[in-house]
């Protein structure tokens, strides 16, 4: 029941990534901000016939500060928990006006983005609702820097276990204040919305893969969701020059898993696929954790616990790294 989408071809390698810039300088993000890069890659892939709505967070406050904007394409703010509703409203408005002949008919990409606070916490219900409307073509992109970074790094439902934040500071009595394990968001949405044709995880360190995921999400039809892991030099506390490397380390340690779920089929990508097939060993989590000041207070025992949880997700989960539950032995 979906209307036409744009023709956005897949790229093969970095040299095919478009030169077009829809998100340029004029933003006020941190040095080495990976989320700013994600915005840039996102709109490069989508092209100029796109409307972007962005919920409150760094990519609102640091990007668009009144009288200047980095956006070449039309962009509008939406409230923290509203990325799903913003995408639905924008797509519905366009669809209605075009159907009734009140607006020139053409496929316009609709992308709503949210941070992990807006997406994984507050906005989950509206995202879920948006994913039920298969009559609208839209993409919701969750850029996950693993904290409420814009409000000065408070723990979210997507923060990793043990991470230092201004709401989970290690103290004299409680070393680990964030005892929650990071939400497994993309599989949760995929399992809960079986009609959605495309859900993926992504990382800006892998440019062509990222571009192709955005393009697949925008062309397949219906509502789609991409969850991107964005190293945050401020909140994670590392030298900004390592944003790219930390993104790769998140994948290579198996902490972040790269995949697409296309029409009900799970396709692991890049290093995650090599890990799953046993072609490439997972790097120890310490190679990732010990590079970041937010984990500086972790003890040997904590690091071991973290490693065991990651091992478990790869060795014991029904779908390694992705789905924690499976059928009971007797039903398998």
């Amino acid at each position: 029941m979906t209307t036409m989408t744009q023709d956005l071809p897949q790229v093969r390698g970095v040299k095919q990534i478009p030169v077009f810039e829809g998100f340029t300088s004029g933003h006020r993000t941190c040095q080495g901000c990976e989320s700013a890069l994600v915005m840039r890659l996102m709109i490069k892939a989508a092209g100029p016939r796109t409307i972007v709505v962005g919920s409150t967070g760094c990519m609102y406050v640091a990007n668009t500060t009144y009288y200047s904007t980095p956006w070449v394409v039309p962009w509008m703010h939406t409230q923290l928990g509203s990325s799903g509703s913003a995408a639905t409203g924008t797509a519905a408005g366009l669809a209605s006006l075009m159907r009734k002949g009140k607006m020139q008919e053409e496929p316009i990409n609709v992308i709503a983005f949210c941070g992990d606070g807006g997406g994984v916490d507050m906005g989950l219900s509206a995202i879920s609702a948006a994913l039920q409307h298969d009559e609208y073509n839209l993409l919701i992109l969750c850029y996950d820097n693993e904290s409420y970074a814009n409000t000065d790094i408070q723990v979210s439902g997507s923060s990793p276990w043990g991470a230092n934040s201004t709401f989970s500071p290690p103290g004299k009595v409680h070393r680990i204040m964030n005892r929650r394990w990071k939400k497994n968001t993309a599989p949760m949405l995929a399992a809960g919305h079986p009609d959605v044709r495309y859900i993926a995880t992504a990382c800006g360190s892998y440019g062509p893969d990222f571009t192709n995921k955005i393009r697949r999400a925008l062309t397949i039809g219906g509502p789609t969701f991409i969850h991107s892991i964005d190293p945050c030099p401020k909140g994670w506390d590392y030298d900004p020059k390592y944003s790219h490397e930390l993104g790769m380390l998140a994948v290579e340690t198996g902490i972040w898993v790269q995949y697409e779920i296309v029409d009900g089929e799970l396709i692991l990508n890049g290093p995650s696929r090599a890990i799953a097939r046993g072609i490439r060993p997972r790097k120890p989590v310490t190679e990732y954790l010990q590079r970041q000041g937010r984990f500086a207070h972790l003890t040997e025992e904590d690091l071991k616990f973290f490693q065991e949880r990651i091992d478990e997700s790869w060795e014991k989960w029904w779908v390694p790294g992705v789905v924690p539950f499976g059928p009971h032995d007797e039903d398998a």
Partner: protein
Amino acid sequence: MSTVAVEVVYRGIFQKTLARNIVRTIVFAARKEGKIGTAFGRYGDSPERNGIPAKQFAIVSDSPEELEENLAVYEAREVDVTINVDDTMCKGIESWAWYGLQPINALTKPGGTLIVTSRQEADALIEDIHQKDTAYNLAIVPASTSFSGLWVYKDDHTDVRILGALARVCPELVSLDSMLAALEDQGWGGLKLTSARNTHDRLSTRPVEPGEGSEDEPFSFDLPGWKSMEEGLVIRGVEEGTGFRGVAQGDGYDPINSVADGSHGGFEPTRSAVFKKFSTRSMRPVINFDTCIKCTLCWLQCPDTCFDVTPDGLYDANMEACCGCAVCEAVCPVADCITMVNESEFNDNNSQWEHWTQDKEGYHRWMADLIQVQKDKDATRSHGYHSPGTYEAESEVAMAGDDD
């Protein structure tokens, strides 16, 4: 004396704890002398962004009534002492919520003092600092720039050394004894006290005459009123980019399929006229265009869209947009093709590619010199946490290198 105001200009997040230690200790020290004070950060800088210049203030008065005259403000109107904890900010600072470039000495009172942590000589710094109509003093605390992060503080004594210097240049604020007592109250004894005292004793200042310094006009911006602002919270988007140096894009350009290989006249994104990002930069990339293999990675991975694509398929970093994150250096697969060099080595934001095309030999000499200077002077320069133990090692190096 009635009221003394001090500002600390620092790089957001990297030096947040450092600035906080300084302004809070000033107020504690003033209490030792029966004075009253306040310490606050400029609200518009919050939430702070890595590297983007920010300010904290300490204001000390003899009485609560005098202090009240300086309360409920975002920024002190003028200060007796400006403390700049990264000498690359001598070129001016643009807060992320402030429009235009503010000279580092903008708030320094006539006859006041600018304290800078630096390994440079005074004359070299003054070359960068915007000139003023009135005289002031420049004091240098010899030190490498101290950068850490949000969670782990690099305790290399920069905070106490600056406080020692402050007691020297502004004894009417607090005496050295009061400063040391305030430090001890915070549990900083032993070597930290020695560092403070040594810096106090050995500090020299240099008068800066009116009109001395950089003649550059800092870029500024007028705020329109409600009648001319567009309604509905609307501002116009950035214009779509053009070919390199404004030339029209050649035939066949297509935003979906055209790539960054220099075809169609190259590409230059349009950039904001009202917000530049260069004062965030403490290092800049220097590019060897001859060894570049045109892999696109520096261009592709730049979060600030700062690489222009030249018609010959090279990538020229725009120095008004570059904030010095060094991701380009990190992702470049060719050894020494991109090298980050301390910002204080440069006096303009000119195009490196233009320099290279006009005079390849001259460019190579210039580039080789810069890379050598960078290697000699500042090998341990760091923007934050790397791994357990690095800060301790860096602090040892920093303290061993003190001229104290």
